[in-house]
Every structure is written in structure tokens, then in C-alpha cells.
């Protein structure tokens, strides 16, 4: 076999492993023959191991053959050549995608093993692993996407599985409400992503990242679009990334997402999904280079989110929310790094942060237990030393910041008050008017209401 054939076989293996996992879980669920917990765990394990081995094999070959950019053409999913419409499926293995896909497999594998014990005999065991399969496939496709359409495909799968997992505990209302909120933010982000993809198509005639970013393997590509176009497309992509990575003004969903089971909180919102927005910005980073204004906005959004996250994390009363905002701080810094053009640093930062945060979230429940043991042993709370800010700032300012952080920057309240409420009020008024009109046409009440 030639190296290209090896690349192709391993490349298909990376994507096929999670796809088969999803097909097995989905089909058995649909025909009413659910698998046992043990079988599901084994299938998950096998899928992750095969995918990880394939990804590592590709990395090994790329290092051995000194290949920095390995595109795998799967072909056109749909094509209307006369209209220049192609939905091109293409995978790209490069310095950005390979570390990210390996990270995804490692963390998802760890979480899969953890969850099979953590959720043992839970009524939603099957549902969790079905969503997990969606998520894994979505992450792998998004990471390896060589075209913006393929990236969108994976992006959507990640979004759906995340929202369903936030609402995992069906019988309680808060997780369900939060799941809907997460989905709403994701859909706004998806709409922006779709418009950006269409704009890119219209500007460059293709959705292929190679075409969009000019020649050169990541991160050396140079975009071939004008500054004004880069600003327009870049802003849309920034909205998409902000929605997915919970950057300001969409940060409100991140702590709400912690209502889901701990394994999903750890892998989705703590480590992988929350970095997907940053990954998108890294993937299209040549566009950012074209426009200084755009880069400046990216830095500003990143730094604002980081400061907001740092402030808010300090006043959270539950550990998962505190970790969620701590994640936001790091993601904000990563986005700012991307805006400043520090691509490798951002990539390394993502990998380190994702691993650390997964560990912290998985350790969170037992950590609390340890703290309680220590406090019981010494007979009081652990000693608390005043921070620099406590010593420097006066009480009024500190109280203002405290309230601001406790209310999470009033972001949700502002969105509810100025967007959701007027929207619902308008359509409810229309609904009342329509009912009156129909009643009028029906001459008031029916004979049999």
C-alpha cells in the first residue's frame, strides 16, 4: 500500500468509528431493541480506541514523512455542476486538526469509561450514550472538516447533543429550561455560521478551506478576500464562535449547562464543546489577519469575556458553576490570543486547558468531600487570606462588583428584557388578534366549544 492509501484508510477509520457507534445506538433504539449497559460500554470503548489509533497512526505517518497537510477527498455528497453547487466532503489532517482530534478521542474515551460507571443503572443510561455518540461524531467531523459545509455539519451535531444532555434529567424543570436556553443560543450561533458560510461561498466560489485561505498549510495560509469582506464574514463567524464558546454576550448559558450529568459537563462545556468556537476562529484565522479591525474586535470580545469570567467565577456558590466561569476566563484569553495572531500558543492553551478542566470537573464531587473531611478534622473552616483586591478597593466598589458578578453581569436579564420579552409580547398580541378575527368570522362561540 502507498502512503496515500494508508492515509485514506486511517482517515476513514477516524470518522467511521464514531459514525458506526452512532448508527448502532440509533438503530437499536429505533427498532426497540436497546443494548445492555455492558454492550454499550464495550461498543463505546471499541469505537474510541479504533478512532484514536487511526488518528495517532496518521500523526505518526505525518511526522515520519514530514507531511504537514494531508487532505482526504471523500467526494461530493451533493453536486449540481451546472450551478457550481457542491457539497464537498473533505477531511484535512494538519497541525490544527490532528492534535484536536486526538484530544477529542482521549477526553471522550476517558469520559466514556467514567460515565459507564457513574451512570450505572441510571434510567437515562442509553440516552446519555446516544447523545455521547452524536457528540463524538460531531466533534470529529468539525475538527477534521476541510470545507466550511462539513464543519457546519459537525457543528450542528455537537449543538444538538449538548442541548439534549443539559436537559438530561428530564423529570426536573430547571435542566429542561436550561437545555432550551442553550439550544436557543446555539441556533443563533448556527444561523450566523450559515450566513458566514454562504457569504464565503459567494465571495470565493467554494467552501473549501484551502481555497478560502489561499496556499500554505495551517497556520501559514493567507486569505484571498478583501478587508471589508473579511470584516463582514469574520463578524458573522465571531458571533457563531461566541455562541458556541459562551463568549460575551452569550455567556449566560455556560453555568446553566452544568445542570447536566457531571461527565457531560466535564467533556462538553468544560473542555471540548466550549473550545469549538475558538477552534473555528483558529481554522479561519487567515481571515482575521486580513482585517485589523476584525482582529481588534476578536481581542476585545476575548478579553471582556475573560475579565467577566474571572469576576463571576469568584462569587459562584457551587463548584461546577465556578469551574464553568473559570473555563470562560481561559477561553476568553485563548480567543484574545487568536485575535493577536498567536496561533500555536492558542492551540497549546486549548489542549492544556481542556485536559485540566476535565480533570477538575471529574474531581469536583470528591474534592468537596475532601474539603468537608479536612474542615471536620480541624474543626473550623479552612483559613481565608484577604486578596489584593480586598485590601485595595473600598467596600462600596467591592459590593458593586459582587452584585454584578452574582447577577452574572445581568447578561441574561438584559437579553430577556430587551429581546425575548418584546418578541413574545408582539407575537402574543398577534395571536390574540387572530383569535378575535377567527371568532368574529365564526360568529362568536361554536355550538360545541
Amino acid at each position, binding site marked *: 500500500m502507498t502512503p496515500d492509501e494508508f492515509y485514506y484508510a486511517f482517515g476513514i477509520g477516524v470518522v467511521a468509528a464514531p459514525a458506526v457507534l452512532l448508527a448502532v445506538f440509533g438503530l437499536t*433504539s*429505533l*427498532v*426497540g431493541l436497546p443494548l445492555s449497559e455492558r454492550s454499550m460500554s464495550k461498543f463505546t470503548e471499541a469505537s474510541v480506541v479504533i478512532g484514536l489509533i487511526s488518528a495517532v497512526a496518521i500523526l505518526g505517518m505525518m511526522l515520519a514523512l514530514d507531511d504537514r497537510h494531508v487532505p482526504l477527498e471523500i467526494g*461530493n*455528497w*451533493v*453536486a*449540481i455542476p*451546472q*450551478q*457550481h*453547487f457542491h*457539497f464537498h466532503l473533505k477531511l484535512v489532517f494538519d497541525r490544527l486538526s490532528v492534535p484536536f482530534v486526538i484530544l477529542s478521542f482521549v477526553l471522550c474515551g476517558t469520559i466514556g469509561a467514567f460515565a459507564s460507571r457513574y451512570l450505572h443503572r441510571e*434510567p437515562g443510561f442509553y440516552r446519555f450514550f446516544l447523545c455521547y455518540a452524536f457528540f463524538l461524531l460531531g466533534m470529529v467531523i468539525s475538527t477534521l472538516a476541510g470545507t466550511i*459545509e462539513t464543519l*457546519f*455539519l459537525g457543528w*450542528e*451535531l455537537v449543538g*444538538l447533543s449538548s*442541548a439534549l444532555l443539559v*436537559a438530561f434529567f*428530564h*423529570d426536573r*424543570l430547571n435542566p*429542561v429550561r436550561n*437545555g*432550551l436556553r442553550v*439550544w*436557543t443560543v446555539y*441556533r*443563533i450561533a*448556527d*444561523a450566523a455560521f*450559515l*450566513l458566514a458560510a*454562504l457569504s464565503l*461561498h*459567494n465571495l470565493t466560489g467554494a467552501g473549501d478551506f484551502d481555497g478560502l485561505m489561499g496556499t500554505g498549510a495551517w497556520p501559514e495560509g493567507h486569505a484571498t478576500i478583501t478587508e471589508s469582506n473579511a470584516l463582514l464574514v469574520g463578524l458573522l463567524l465571531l458571533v457563531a464562535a461566541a455562541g458556541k464558546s459562551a463568549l460575551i454576550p452569550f455567556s449566560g448559558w455556560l453555568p446553566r449547562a452544568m445542570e447536566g450529568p457531571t461527565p457531560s459537563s466535564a467533556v462538553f462545556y468544560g473542555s471540548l464543546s466550549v473550545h469549538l468556537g475558538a477552534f473555528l476562529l483558529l481554522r479561519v484565522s487567515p481571515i482575521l489577519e486580513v482585517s485589523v479591525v476584525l482582529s481588534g474586535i476578536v481581542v476585545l470580545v476575548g478579553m471582556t469575556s475573560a475579565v467577566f469570567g474571572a469576576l463571576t467565577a469568584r462569587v459562584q456558590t457551587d463548584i461546577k458553576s465556578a469551574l464553568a466561569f473559570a473555563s470562560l476566563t481561559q477561553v476568553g484569553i485563548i480567543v484574545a490570543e487568536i485575535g493577536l495572531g498567536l496561533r500555536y500558543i492558542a492551540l497549546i492553551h486549548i489542549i492544556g486547558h481542556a485536559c485540566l478542566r476535565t480533570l477538575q470537573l471529574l474531581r469536583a464531587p470528591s474534592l468537596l468531600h475532601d474539603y468537608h473531611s479536612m474542615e471536620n478534622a480541624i474543626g473550623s473552616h479552612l483559613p481565608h487570606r484577604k486578596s489584593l483586591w480586598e485590601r485595595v478597593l473600598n467596600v462600596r466598589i467591592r459590593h458593586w462588583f459582587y452584585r454584578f458578578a452574582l447577577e452574572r453581569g445581568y447578561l441574561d436579564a438584559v437579553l430577556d428584557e430587551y429581546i425575548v420579552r418584546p*418578541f*413574545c409580547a*408582539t*407575537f*402574543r398580541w*398577534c*395571536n390574540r388578534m*387572530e383569535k378575535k*378575527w*377567527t371568532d368574529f*368570522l*365564526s*360568529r362568536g362561540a*361554536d*355550538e*360545541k366549544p
Partner: protein
Amino acid sequence: MRELILPWQELSVLVPLIGAIAVRCLRDSDRAYRWSVALCTLTLSFAVGEWIDFGLLHAFEAHDHWDFLKYVFHADIFVIDELNAPLLPLAALLYLMTVLSTLRTKMNRFSFASTLFSEAVLLATLSCRHPLVIIGLCAVAIIPPWLEIRGRGHCTRAFGIHMSLFVAMLFGGWLLLPDNLVGHPENNASPAVLAAGAMLTAAALLRSGIVPVHCWMTDLFDKATLGTALLFVSPMTGAYVVMRMVLPIAPLWALQSIAVVSLFTSVYAAGMALVQTDARRFFCYLFLSHSSLVLVGLELLTPIGLTGALCVWISVGLAMGGFGLTLRAVESRIGRFNLIQYRGLYEHTPTLAALFLMTGLASIGFPGTIGFIGTELLIEGAVGVFPLIGTAVVIAAALNSIAVLHAYFRIFTGTKYTVSISLTVRPSERIAVVALAALIIGGGLFPQPGVASRYHAALELLRHRDPAAAVQETMGHDVPESAKTTSHDELTDRELSENL
């Protein structure tokens, strides 16, 4: 015109028609159910046979072998072409699924005879290209739901007024239309043609439920059985009327104006779906939003937009049909319900929950489902023609997706619904679920054949409307002057196939 190997169209109309009479005579509802399932299955097999047969002919249009109607009326009444070929099996499938998933709790209220009669009328309408016969059949199709609303003791006035107006405008428009209307639609700008076009357009928009003449639809869902209402709206007869009667005569500016109105309807209905507290009204607005998107694409008159619309027509028909049937299955279990409370049905019927989510996501064009590529094409077409307003398609899709998940959470999550009987999915329902899921996922994973067929249909429809422009589009915008003047007669099917 080419001939099919069997009189598929006549058989697919005749079987449910005769079946309706036979089922009407049965007193036992269980037997009526079994007969109806068998008859609908037979009708579906004829419709599928017709589609396959037509596909093998590689022609734009064909008619039945042993065409009895042609023999009697000396005209091609029933014609199968690129437009209606997949719509006939889709309509037959929707009827079969509806009948199949009817539970015993609904059998006393749901008339199988009337349903079979409606199926025959619908298939005849979709098979027909003759304007006057289409008008007649559209008028007849109104009768069963009207009778049902009256039979249930509700006021028929709102539905009756709208539908009477629809038929009157359709007929009036047809009367005003000159007999010798030939050539390009842009050249037919006489006051009579404009008036006729306006009336036909208004009629089609009314039947499609475009704002502000959409209230009959919510009224129908309020007062008729869910199955009847679903079958009356889901085949999108209004869009079919647009394609057969408005598209060939209306100028481009008029069609694009309709597209803008449809776009507004789509966003408006999506917003309305989000604030509904009644499950039926929620479905009605969700469907309206999607069907308006189909109209948007149909009126764009670009190959991409039209292809997208034809794809979305099929996907929305399947997805929203399945979605409506899921709601109906839930209604069969817990009665008519609102979306204020959380129902907690997941633990009882996880399969229905999966189908609800799958069909809902397919309707919004979620990746991997049948609606994905169609929606992408539609958005691309809309944004291509209206760069700013076209983004409203994306907004409508986003709002619809939020509405779908909102409804899913309200119905299937919350404290577990307490009940003393089993609410699990029945075998007949499971068959419907698996069949719909296979079509939705299969069509989503392998979209190329469907898209290619719809693209071909779109080109043919454009060619019939404006031969020169179609050639230009087919050849990728680089057309010699000689080709631009090619007349309809000169451009044969074979030449078009070669261009493709």
C-alpha cells in the same frame, strides 16, 4: 407524449375511490381500519409503480397506458411529469401512515371512508394538469373537512368563507384568462391577463395559508380531527396550484413579490409557533412556516432556488407529516393537550419521542436528514436573489428549530405521566415510525439522486416558462446568441438532456 406501461394514475385514483364506497358500507370500525390500510397500501404501490415507470422513461411528461380519460374527453387530463411524479407517492404515503397509525381510541371519530375519498381526490388533483379540472377537484376536496367540522357541531363559517373565496377566485381567474395566451409571461401584460393572474395568485396564496389569509388553517386544526386537518394541508395543494396555474403566466416581478410575502409569512408563522400554548395550533403555525418556505423557493425562479423548493416540498411533506402523526399519536394517548404543562411522556413512549425529534429536526433541515440539502439550496437561492431579505429564511429556520425543541421538552419531559394503562408504541405505529425514519435518514444520507431529479424538474419547469433563460442557466450563464433565441419547439428533451 410518452406512455406508461400501465394505467397507474387511473388505478391510484380508482382504488381509493371504490374503496371509499366499500368502506362506507362497513359497520365494524376494526374491519374498516383493516380495509383502509390494505387499500392505502395498494394505492401507494400504484403511485410508486407510476413513479418508477416514469423514471425509466427518461421523459419530461407521460400519460397512462390505456388512458380512459383521454378516450372519453379527447384531452390529456392525467399527466405525470417531473413535478408531480414524486408528489403522488408522497401523498399516498401520508395517507397510508395516517390510516396505519390510527388507534382504536380515534376510530370512532376518524372517518376512513371520507379519508379514502379525499385521497382519491388529492391524487387526481396532483395527477391533473388541466386547469378547469384542477379547480373542480380543489373544490371537491374542501367538502370532506367541511362536512366533518359540521358533523362535530362546530361553526364552519371561517373555513367556508375562505374556501369559497379560494374556489371563486380560482374559477374567476381562469375565466378571465385569454384562450390564446402564448409566449413569454413578461410579454403578456394585458389588463385581462394581469387581473386573471392576480386572482389566481390570490387564490393560491389563500389555499397556502399566506398571511393575512391564513386563519382558516388554525380554524381547521381547532375544529376538525387532527388526521383530517393534517391530510388537508400537508400535501401543499396551494403550492401545486401555483406551479400549474400561476407560474406559467405570472411575470417575474409578481412572482418575486409573492416570494417576499411568503418569506414574511414564514418568519411570522415561526414566531407564532413559539408562543402557542395549544399543541394543534403550534403544529399549524410550524407547518405554515415551512410550507411558506417552499413557496419562497418556487417563486425565486432560479434553478438553485427552485431545486431547493422542490426538495423542501418533499422533505417538509415527509417530515411535517411524520411530526403531525406523532402529535396525533400523543393525542390518542392523553387527549387533546396544551403546551403549558410538561407532560413527562418520554418514559412511556421513547420511540415516539425519537420520531418527534427526528421529524422536527428534518423539517428544519438538520444535517443527516432529508431536509438538510434542500434547505441549504433554498437558502442559497433566496440569498442569491434577495441578499438581505433572503437571510429571513435562516431566521425562520432558527425560530422553527427553537419551537420544535420547546414542544419536545413540553411533551416528553417533566414529571413522569401517571397512568394505569400502557402507553407504549403499538406495532402499527412502530411500522410507521420505522418507515418514516428510514426515508428521513436514508434521504439525508444519500441526497444526490433526489437532488438531481429535482434539479432536472426545476430546469424543465423553467424551460416551459421561459425557454431562453432555461438554456442560459443550463449552460452555466455562457450562452451564445443563437442559443438565447432557441424556441421551445427547437429545444427538444434530448438536447436538454445533453446539456445536463
